[in-house]
């Protein structure tokens, strides 16, 4: 079995296993093998169990698999369960100490590494010993499954940014375990890696870094945030790419403020957007809850700003380190009263980058907050991708008038009012503070207002304004990124999904096709939904809406949006805190359809 199996590495949180796992993933990536690493980690600094799954797939499938063939059982607390989860013919790599206490199975291969004994042979300073101990499984895995030692050294060197000392210290342990394995273990399993040409020209990156890089190329210039898992690394990403936007004197064009809470972060980006900035905040569910009041204000006062929601499992504090698509409805309808937010739904790394820059153009063109709903799986895990395309259109600042344009507007229309809709698309013209024209100023407010932005409690003003906002939403439907559609199977069955389920759905569709069940496919990429989504639903007899939440929220939204009977649309939703698997989709769809 070559280049087509999955690992699960079970360790304790805070034990330094992140470096070991990263080294394995990057080594496979450099061997040209399509690979995906997913970190299932606890909400804890040290001690609780953590699993890292690595999937190699010669065919390029990178979804999480329900079952992994190999486990590295380095956590005595979970080892029994980890071994029990292996399929027949599986492999358990463990320490000699743990091997004594776990239940033995006679249908799998056991490889025991004498970690304590090996570590005693090293001259690693005691302060580092615990941190590098996990390199023993890297060495054993390298030997057992054929990863070249020199490649691992290269990856270690890159991991430590070219510093030889730590790279060598880690590599010495890898080599020690490698050599010990070569001399003492007889391989009894069929799995191994072999260099191939599946990753040439491709990149590996996390979705948070990709979105952050996109924001930097989209001209973000004010960032306000409050730390929260799993969105923290999004702003870390912007900080790491900030230098790309410094001038020759190393001065910044991006201000980054760690605010006192998410409420203030939302206030800062709202104030900045009003004053003409491209402002961004990044958060997750609990932060989105706090941002609700500014989201409503920005929607109603028509202020551009970009909000990233790296979704984690809710309700409430929920599972802070587990993935979910459970904020779809809350984010889309964020704010009290009749409010509705524009949402972009990236499904992969390239879209995280693309929506990273495009969200600013859309926010300014539509004069509205734009929410980019990603999730922990895309945000924090390493994904394989083609390199990103440079933005294919210049920056669009939308209908913003400078002093001269304002005068032209007044000459043409007799006057300028902040909320006058002269183009019939629901999008008015705005000015920003600092515009040197006697009629440029207006008063932004969350209270009732007329087209001149003057305070108004008149019912007719209120209703007129809501009609225009509704018209603007309809304009947005066709301006936002349209759905991805694969409509050529000729089948009556259509699958509708969004976000990171893409890989699992793609693989499940291939399995179904092998069984003779062909499906069409649509991935929603923005809310409010485009008319093409309705067309797709109505052109199929059976529609399954696959999503990673408990209530089937996209399914609910499709029913809200559809004026006609769509009882042929059924929900297939699973919210268990883990990335969707092709296995679950395949089994459930087959059961429903069969």
């Amino acid at each position: 079995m070559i280049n087509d199996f999955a690992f699960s590495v079970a360790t304790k949180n805070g034990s330094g296993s992140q470096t070991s796992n990263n080294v394995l993933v990057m080594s496979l990536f450099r061997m040209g093998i399509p690979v995906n690493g997913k970190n299932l980690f606890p909400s804890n600094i040290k001690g609780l169990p953590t699993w890292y799954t690595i999937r190699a797939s010669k065919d390029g499938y990178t979804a999480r698999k329900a079952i992994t063939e190999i486990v590295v059982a380095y956590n005595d607390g979970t080892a029994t369960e980890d071994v029990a989860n292996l399929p027949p013919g599986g492999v358990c790599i463990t320490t000699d100490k743990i091997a004594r206490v776990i239940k033995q199975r006679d249908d799998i291969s056991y490889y025991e590494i004498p970690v304590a004994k090996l570590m005693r042979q090293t001259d690693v300073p005691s302060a580092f010993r615990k941190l590098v101990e996990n390199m023993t499984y890297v060495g054993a895995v390298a030997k057992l499954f054929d990863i070249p030692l020199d490649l691992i050294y290269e990856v270690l060197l890159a991991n430590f940014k070219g510093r030889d000392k730590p790279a060598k210290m880690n590599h010495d342990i890898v080599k020690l375990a490698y050599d010990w394995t070569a001399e003492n273990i007889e391989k009894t399993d069929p799995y191994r890696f072999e260099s191939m040409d599946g990753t040439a020209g491709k990149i590996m990156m996390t979705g948070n870094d990709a979105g952050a890089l996109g924001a930097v190329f989209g001209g973000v210039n004010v960032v306000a945030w409050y730390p929260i898992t799993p969105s923290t690394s999004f702003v870390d990403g912007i900080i790491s790419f900030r230098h790309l936007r410094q001038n020759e004197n190393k001065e910044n064009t991006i201000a980054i403020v760690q605010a006192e809470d998410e409420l203030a972060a939302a206030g800062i980006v709202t104030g900045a957007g009003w004053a003409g900035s491209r402002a961004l905040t990044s958060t997750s569910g609990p932060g989105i809850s706090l941002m609700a009041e500014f989201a409503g204000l920005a929607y109603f006062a028509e202020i551009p700003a970009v909000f990233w929601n790296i979704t984690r499992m809710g309700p409430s504090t929920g599972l802070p380190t587990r993935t979910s698509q459970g904020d779809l409805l809350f984010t889309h309808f964020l704010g009290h009263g009749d409010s509705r937010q524009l949402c972009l739904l990236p499904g992969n790394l390239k879209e995280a980058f693309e929506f990273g820059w495009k969200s600013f153009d859309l926010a300014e063109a539509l004069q509205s907050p734009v929410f980019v709903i990603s999730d922990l799986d895309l945000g924090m895990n390493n994904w394989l991708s083609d390199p990103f395309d440079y933005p294919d259109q210049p920056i669009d600042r939308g209908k913003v008038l400078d002093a001269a344009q304002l005068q032209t507007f007044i000459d043409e229309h007799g006057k300028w009012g902040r909320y006058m809709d002269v183009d019939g698309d629901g999008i008015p013209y705005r000015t920003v503070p600092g515009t040197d024209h006697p009629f440029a100023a207006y008063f932004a407010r969350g209270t009732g207002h007329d087209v001149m932005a003057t305070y108004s409690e008149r019912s007719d003003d209120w209703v007129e304004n809501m009609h225009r906002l509704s018209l603007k939403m309809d304009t947005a439907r066709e301006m936002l990124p349209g759905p991805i559609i694969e409509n050529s199977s000729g089948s009556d069955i259509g699958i509708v999904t969004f976000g990171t389920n893409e890989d699992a759905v793609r693989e499940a569709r291939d399995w179904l096709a092998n069984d003779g069940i062909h499906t069409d496919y649509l991935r929603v990429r923005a809310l409010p939904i485009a008319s093409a989504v309705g067309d797709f639903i109505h052109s199929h007899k059976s529609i399954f809406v696959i999503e990673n939440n408990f209530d089937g929220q996209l399914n609910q939204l499709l029913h809200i949006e559809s004026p006609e009977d769509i009882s042929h649309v059924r929900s297939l939703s699973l919210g268990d805190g883990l990335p969707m698997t092709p296995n679950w989709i395949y089994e459930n769809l087959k059961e429903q359809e069969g």
Partner: protein
Amino acid sequence: MPPRVNQLGLSRNEYKGRPSTLCPGCGHDSISNQIISIAYEMGIEQHKFIKVSGIGCSSKTPAYFLGGSHGFNALHGRMPSVVTGALLANKDLSCVAVSGDGDSGSIGMGQFKHVIRRNVPFVYIIENNGVYGLTKGQFSATADEGQFLKYYGLNEMPPIDLALEAVISGASFVARSFSGDAKQVRALLQAAILHQGTAVLDIISPCVTFNNAETSTKSFPYGRDNEVPLHEIQILAPDYVHAQEEIEVDNYEAGDIIDVEMHDGSFIRLKKLDNDHDPRNRRMAIDVLEQSLREQIFSTGLIYYEEPHPTLADTEDLVSTPLARLDEASLRPSKEALDSVMRGLMAG
């Protein structure tokens, strides 16, 4: 006779906003009037100013002054974050922001203290009347302990002193005044506008409808009878020469005059009254506020002042062009820059 005009050729009327909808006689309206007057006298260019507020009676007032400035009536207690964002977007703007005691002392206490910590340079006016007016007369967190109001009866909670909170939080300019003392309000406003840092003005501004009985320390009768100015305040133009002779001409002892030089070279001149307060001394500032609180002495004036320290935009090390005005070349790195990042992420 043509109207009087300032150095920009504008009349005072051109610094007004829309007509006030507050109760006749409201203290807040007199503060708005002083803002209009001082903006006119200083000859400020309105398009270079923004006015921002939270929610409440006080927060309605930015609609009533500086009609030529962009304004933002934001959310209850959230004015400071909106100001932070706006002034990061465009650090060339100046800002006069209005809040109230409910806005800053209760729902927005966190933002009040954190905007000071960040040292965002703007004038932070608190129109403090000790009562919630729009919801018909509940006590606010600055109301006197032991005070009686029709709506709630007896207030048994001690007040929060917002000027004291501002000093403790590290504000470099903290003043207290009384909306009935137009001259002092005007002088403090002018100094605050010139200041390069968060300038907090806690102005006792009576609510004529719900909290104006003379038993309240937030009332007009109490303020008129009990205000104890710490000093007389004069703002002297940048071309003023600090000469010993002038002080003697004014019959003041050298120790009775404190001149504080402002960012633009002008001076705040404080002429001592019966108190030895030196606003450059943090300990004295805290003492004067604590004594005021304990003994219910209505001390007004410049309570605390220190040399401006770096503002938020300084600590962010920003380019000189306001961020909101950056062109595409500054907002989007080149294709080569993207390709270089991509190459660094490839397998090799």
